[in-house]
Each structure stands twice: as C-alpha cells, then as structure tokens.
C-alpha cells in the first residue's frame, strides 16, 4: 500500500498507531503459527483469517483491519486463547478491536455496534436487560424492515410462553447510574 508522507497524513498515522497500541501490546509475541485460525469455528466466514488479522494489527494496518469483518465474527468461544502456544489473550484482543470499532463508529460494523449500544443502554436504564425492549430498540435503530420479521415467529412463541413481556419497564430506578458515570470519568469520556 502506498502512503504519501504529507504532514497531515503523518499526523493521522500517528493517531492511528496510538489507537492500536494496546492491541499490539497484547499480541506482540505472535509467531504466526495459525493455531488460532485452525481453532476458530467462525474462520469459514471471515474475509481474513485470525492469523492474518494479527499480522495486520502488528503492522498497524488500521484501514485493512476495520474494513475486515473478522473481529466482529469472533463469538468468544476462547478456543484460540486456550490453544495459543504463546499464551496470548487473543479473544480479549478481538474484544479490544470491537471496542475501537464501536468508539470510532465504523460504518461496516454499525449493526453489531448498535446491538451492543442498545444492550448497554437498557442495562444503564434498568440495571437489568429487558430482552423485548432491547430487541425492539435495536430493530428500530438498524432500520431494516425485514429483520424484525425474521424473529417475529420466535417473538410470538416467547410471548405466548410468557418469557418476554410487552410491558415497558418503569423508569423509576437507575441503580447503575453512578457506576456508569464513574467508568466514563475514569475513561476520560464524560
């Protein structure tokens, strides 16, 4: 990949490398053996294998990393973490990439980010997740009219069994508000 070395570009590159630095630190001693790829149940659907992704991370190839869906396809089964001969926290590194994509609001990862954001909002609002509220808000946010239909039958079954309720939870208690604020403060996001 060709990159011109204009000052603006250089500044962007240095900001990018700072973003990736914590993830790079996690996987610094990767020997590219491919055990992670061989162990990954989702590798069949990935555009880059986990092994290739770690190489891109070490090379600081921000654009390629976040254009790829590989980290979003990690289902946190922890096989790679268990088997990595270097003992690297690979599942956590996948999580760290998800966090960056969410923070930077990367378009490619919008649906996953929206799901997680709505989940966390529900937790912040009520202390516990209200599954029906979560799914309704998620579908509304994704703006994909087909998506709710795919789950309509299941939703009706769950309602018939009294497993999800249509009652909107009350707004009275926000038991986690202080915790959320404190976390934001410590992360410098408040």
């Amino acid at each position, binding site marked *: 990949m060709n990159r011109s070395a204009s000052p603006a570009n250089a500044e962007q590159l240095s900001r990018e490398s700072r973003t990736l630095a914590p993830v790079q630190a996690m996987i610094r001693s990767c020997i590219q053996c491919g055990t992670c790829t061989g162990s990954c149940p989702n590798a069949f659907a990935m555009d880059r294998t986990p092994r290739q992704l770690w190489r891109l991370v070490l090379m600081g190839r921000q654009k390629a990393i976040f254009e790829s869906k590989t980290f979003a396809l990690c289902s946190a089964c922890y096989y790679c973490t268990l088997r990595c001969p270097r003992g690297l926290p690979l599942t956590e590194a996948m999580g760290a990439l998800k966090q960056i994509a969410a923070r930077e609001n990367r378009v490619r990862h919008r649906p996953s980010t929206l799901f997680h954001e709505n989940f*966390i909002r529900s937790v912040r609002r009520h202390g516990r997740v209200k599954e029906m509220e979560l799914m309704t808000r998620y579908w509304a946010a994704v703006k994909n009219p087909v998506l709710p239909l795919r789950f309509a039958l299941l939703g009706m079954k769950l309602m018939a069994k009294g497993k999800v309720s249509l009652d909107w939870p009350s707004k009275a208690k926000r038991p986690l508000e202080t915790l959320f604020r404190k976390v934001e403060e410590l992360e410098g996001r408040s």
Partner: protein
Amino acid sequence: MRYRYYPGCSLEGTAREYNLSTRALMGALGGDFREIDDWTCCGASAADATSHLLSLALPARNLALAAKQGEGDDILVPCSACYLNLKKVEEKTRRDPELRAQLNEILIADQLQLDGRARVRHLLDVLARDMGADRIRPLVRRPFTDFSIAPYYGCQCLRPYAVFDDPEAPQSMEPLIKAIGARIHPWCMGGQCCGAAHMQTQTEVGMELVTAILQGAKGADAIVTVCPMCQMNLEAYQHRIGRKCAEDLRISVLYLPQLLGLAMGLPQAELGLDLNLAITPEFRKKLSA
C-alpha cells in the same frame, strides 16, 4: 456449603425455566441457596464490545454485593456468559491489585468493595463436584434407562478458565447423566460453539454452527445444556435449519437441572418444562411411558 445465587437477566426472561429448575433442583438436593439482593446485569457480551472498564465494573458490582450479603459464600451462576464475566473479574483482581483498586474506586460510590476473596462457581461445577452423582443416584424416582442424552457444554463454562472440566474434552456432565440411568450420546460437539449472539447480528454464520451441532445430536433423545444462549440457539431454529438442509433435525433440548429434576420425580411444572421451545412429542411420550 452455602451459595449466593446470581440468576442473571436471561433467567428472568427467555430462560425462566432454567431459573425454576435450578431452584427446584438445588432445593431437592438440600443446597443452602440465597439470591443476591439487587443484583444487576453482568454486561453480557455487549459491555466487552463497548468498554473494557465497564465490562469489568458491571460484574465487579455483583461480586461486591455478594460479599457484602454473605461473606465467604460461593457465588452460584447458571448462565455461562454471566459466569465467565464474573469469573474474569475474580481471576483478574486476584492477580492485579491495581485493577482491584481501580474497580473499588468505581464501587465506593455505592458503598461497595471487592476484597479479592469471591469465588464464582458455575451451576455445572456445583452439581458435578459439590453435589455429585452419589448424591443424585439415591434420589432417582424415574430412571432414564431408555434415553440417550447428548451433553452440550458450550464454550464459556469451559474456556478460558479450566476450573472444573477439561476444556478440550469436557466430561463433567457424564456421571450426572449416568446417575439417572441414561446413556451418553457419543459425539464430539459438546464443547463446540453455538455462535452465541451471532444469531442476532450475524445470523447466517450462527446458523452454520447450530446446524453442525443439531446434526451431531441425531440419534439422541435430547440435548442437555447449561447456558441460556446455547439453549435458545439449539431449540429455537430447528425448523428453519431443517428446512434449509432438508433434514429432520427436531430434537428435545432441556436444561441439565430439568433433566435431573425429572429423574428425581420433581413435578414438570416446577421444572418449567412447558416453557421449553423444543420438547418433541416422542420425548413426551417416552417420558410418560
């Protein structure tokens, strides 16, 4: 042994039968067992996808609550995702006093503190090691001798922390299933991934993983699970997947405490058997035989 019970959000909603059957079984086995007051969400997989610190602070609050309400009690968790989130904080804060101090800085506003002594236990761990097959065997009223059961462990009760089972070749359910007289369905899918939340955000990929598990379970009378997400993925999409690959993949899927409870003669209503999404007519017939 005393336990502080952390049901988690799913057990109040889509996994109500896991909650009912866990309570019923622990009661029948004589476990001293109290729910943590005012517990809150562990962050599931969503917190880790948004903020690392939040993903540790949410479970930490519950560990601190449990310690405040029942010092020295083990924390009993039936949901594998909740279990791993809570366990992660237990493991990390034990090794990293700086992290513990940081989390305590967050918790102090609610008059809560982590002392680093919490011990988080999965329901399967408690059933396999504290209760054990020997405690269950004499309580069996309805032997499952004519049943073949496929034990499905999923991921997060096994990995990354190898606490009570072999994370590559799990077996902890087998003595319990044999104790009620059932056979173990021979398969190698027990510790494979069901796709977890992929069903919501990456549906096609999740379907592939579930298909392989359902195909592997063919020939068994039921799959037993120990996680609400595994349970939902395995029970809710059988028709759609069967249509797609033109195969009959219908199979009963039960939570482990439901199966053990049935064998011990606990009433089906107490075990929430009507709440499951996949109990086949064949299974019901065999059960009432």
